């Protein structure tokens, strides 16, 4: 049963990820990426991590992708036109690199012996919100505080970059005058 679910959600994740790369319209890529996030959230539930799955859906599929779709619509991006790329060798290079990476993964899968650890049952409390919160506010308090400073820096940086009359904007106006 779990194997069937793994195959279903894994195939969904890989298919949506291929669609992200294959689509020419960025909006379709964004919607395929939401599919990847949802199927990864289902895999997290299978791995007995319900809190991470909920955060994945809320933060990634909710907040970040809404931001990306908002920017795509704000900039009114048209489909990529077919024009001659200056770096024509990039596509074969990318395919060759991907083949090498996949071959390495296959080699590891074949050669490394299977681990005997069994996945967690629902009786374990690893992955519940209580255990994550307890560890986050006791043992890992310093990374938590550093994260808050990082978010503050991101807010200030995004506002400075995106406002019209910022540092860059005023210099542009000087150049135009």
């Amino acid at each position, binding site marked *: 049963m779990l194997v069937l679910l793994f195959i279903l959600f*894994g195939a969904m*994740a*890989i298919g949506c*990820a*291929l669609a*992200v*790369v294959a689509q020419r319209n*960025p909006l379709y890529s*964004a919607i395929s*990426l939401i599919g*990847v*996030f949802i199927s*990864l959230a289902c*895999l997290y539930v*299978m*791995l007995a*991590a319900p809190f*991470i799955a909920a955060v994945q859906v809320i*933060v*990634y599929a909710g*907040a*970040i992708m809404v*931001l*990306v779709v908002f*920017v795509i619509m*704000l*900039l009114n*991006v048209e489909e990529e036109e077919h024009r001659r*790329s*200056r*770096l024509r060798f*990039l*596509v074969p*290079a*990318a395919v060759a*690199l991907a083949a090498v*990476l*996949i071959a390495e*993964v296959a080699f*590891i*899968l074949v050669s*490394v012996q*299977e*681990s005997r*650890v069994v*996945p*967690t049952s629902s009786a374990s409390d690893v*992955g519940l919100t209580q255990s*994550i919160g307890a*560890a*986050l506010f006791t043992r890992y308090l310093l*990374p938590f505080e550093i*994260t808050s400073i*990082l*978010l503050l820096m*991101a807010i200030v940086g*995004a506002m400075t*970059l*995106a406002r019209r009359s910022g540092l860059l904007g005023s210099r*542009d106006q000087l150049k135009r005058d």
Partner: protein
Amino acid sequence: MEPQLSWYLALSAVLFTIGVVGVIIKRNIIAMFMCIELMLNAVNLTFVAFASFFQDVTGQLFVFIVMTVAAAEAAVGLGIIITIFRNRETLDVDDASILKL
């Protein structure tokens, strides 16, 4: 038969590889941005799989922090994309090959 740890690692590697290929072959800067998000998610799957199989909560905490960094990256990165579009009227990375505005 239960899904093994190596299955999750292989799925994560495949997703990461697709993200790398996307970053290399895409020319639209927003599409490249989304492929970077795809790579971050592939690594998150590895962390959650190890945390679950080794009964350790640290991996899931690391996923939590990676998500925060991804949110900060989204905010700053989209700000940079908007600024580039305002200055150049294009999102093609080949047209943004010089640092001069």
